[in-house]
């Protein structure tokens, strides 16, 4: 791992897990990774590589999709957690923000945030204070607090989803594709807040992203997943400069950026196919 300073102890470690969907579809073929306390760790890879599956395996959300961890172990703060319920895991401090945000559409933004505190039995005053803490990071949510979540913008929904997770007071957040479908400016804003939360609240992040470039800019460490296996890992800076990573995931090659024409052509074809 990193040579700088003493490596922080891993708060979360995934050891050689295998995941099977529907009893037959083998999706993860032995994935191992670690998240050191207080770090942002990126989990990168193309469509279908198994990023979301890895996160759901950790937070025990696979059952609802008939998925099952058939091998390997998952430890959080040194304790085996692979047999816990999502509820127990949230109470230990691990919370997932799912891909596609999954806000409660018919609840208001503020009600969405309040559901995040479901596992904590706290007073009204504390609840209020925690809401303010979330609004401090996401001032936009305060303006939209009485809007039905389903009618807020994609960026606001992503903020709601992260804010909702914060209300559970987690020490580790599993964040799945926060950039999905958002304008670059909003993506930067959200990643900025993630960095803030990491620095000020000491929340560790495991961040699944297809958007390799931006993820590596904000993360400390990265893993690259391909076909259900980790094919490469290293410090974010090293990965960002690695030739293969550049070629395959950043769309850059030694010959320079792919021509704009190619990209356009590809887009057009995709639209036809869709």
């Amino acid at each position, binding site marked *: 791992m990193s040579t700088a300073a003493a490596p922080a102890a891993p708060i979360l470690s995934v050891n050689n897990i295998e995941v099977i969907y529907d009893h037959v579809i083998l999706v993860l073929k032995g994935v191992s990774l670690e998240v050191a306390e207080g770090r942002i760790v990126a989990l990168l890879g193309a469509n279908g590589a198994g990023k979301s599956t890895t996160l759901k395996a950790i*937070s025990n*959300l696979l*059952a*609802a999709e*008939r998925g099952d961890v058939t091998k390997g172990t998952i430890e959080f703060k040194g304790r085996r957690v692979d047999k816990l*319920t*999502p*509820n127990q*895991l*949230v*109470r230990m401090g691990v*919370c*997932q*923000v*799912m891909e596609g945000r*999954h*806000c*409660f*559409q*018919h*609840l208001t933004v503020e*009600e*969405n945030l*309040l*559901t*995040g505190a*479901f*596992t904590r039995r706290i007073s009204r005053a504390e609840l209020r204070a925690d809401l303010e803490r979330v609004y401090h990071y996401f001032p936009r949510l305060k303006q939209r607090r009485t809007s*039905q979540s*389903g*009618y807020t913008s*994609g960026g606001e929904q992503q903020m709601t989803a992260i804010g*909702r*997770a914060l*209300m*559970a007071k987690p020490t580790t957040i599993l964040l799945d594709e926060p950039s999905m*479908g958002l304008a670059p400016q909003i993506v930067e804003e959200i990643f900025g807040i993630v960095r803030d939360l990491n620095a000020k609240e000491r929340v560790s992040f495991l961040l699944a992203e297809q958007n390799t470039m931006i993820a590596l800019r904000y993360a400390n460490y990265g893993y690259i997943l391909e076909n259900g296996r980790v094919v490469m890992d290293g410090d974010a800076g090293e990965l960002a400069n690695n030739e293969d990573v550049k070629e395959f995931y950043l769309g850059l090659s030694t010959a320079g950026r792919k021509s704009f024409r190619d990209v356009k052509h590809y887009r057009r074809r995709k639209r036809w196919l869709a």
Partner: protein
Amino acid sequence: MTFFFEVLIGGLLSGVMYSLVALGFVLIYKASGVFNFAQGALVFMAALTFVGLTEMGLGFAMALAVTLVVMIAGALLTERLVLRKLVNQPQITLFMATIGLTFFIEGLTQLVWGSQPRGLDLGIPDQPIEWVLDRAGIVVSQFELFAAGVAAVMVAALALFFQKTRIGRGLRAVADDHQAAQSIGIPLHLIWAYVWAAAGFVALVAGLLWGARNGVQFALTFTALKALPVLILGGFESVPGAIIGGLIIGAVEKLAEVYVGPMVGGGIEGWVAYVIALLFLLVRPEGLFGEKHIDRV
């Protein structure tokens, strides 16, 4: 004109009781996506248990309390022993399970309490309120007014519970997106337990009201099926829908019986509700208050 109002008011008041049964369905459907066919059986079970207990010599309050405990315990057991095992199965499987449950509850209830029809007296006579009769010349049944009042209080209490409490919010969250609810630590089975217990409670109130009106007998389970047209009208996921739907079905049923019935030889009260529901289904399948699916990307 007074006659028209008399029929209308009578219809609305009995409609409130349809609403009450429909509410039991809505609660469970909202939280777990299960169409609980056994709701009618629960109504029957509640009424018969209550009557059986009073026959054993228990006072009103005591019998009510014990029945409530039985209903809630039954609901929790159902959640624990049947539904939790079937979680993540296709909806049709769960629906079939509730059909099985229906026959089980009906059989068990009759095994314990016997199957002869019985009367149930809540102490409120089914007589016109004289005050209204004197002033407006309209017959309004005391009992029906009382039943409507009880139903209204129940509904208000449930609405408040949904909107303002931690569990209520959790329940709406589960109804919206159960995986997301799990991801922030809301335990589904806890929510389901609450919902089934609430449905058991609603069944108890409905069972007492219906039982007092029509007698406690097996036919109660069919009365509960009247909730179906109500649900089609009001939308399966909507509490206000269940209420308005019940009122509409109640009123239209009575009006049709009185004004249209004679033209076709009478006896249409039993099925006119289903015709309305069918017509409605063709025009607005999601119901009057069916939740709009918010589509925005």
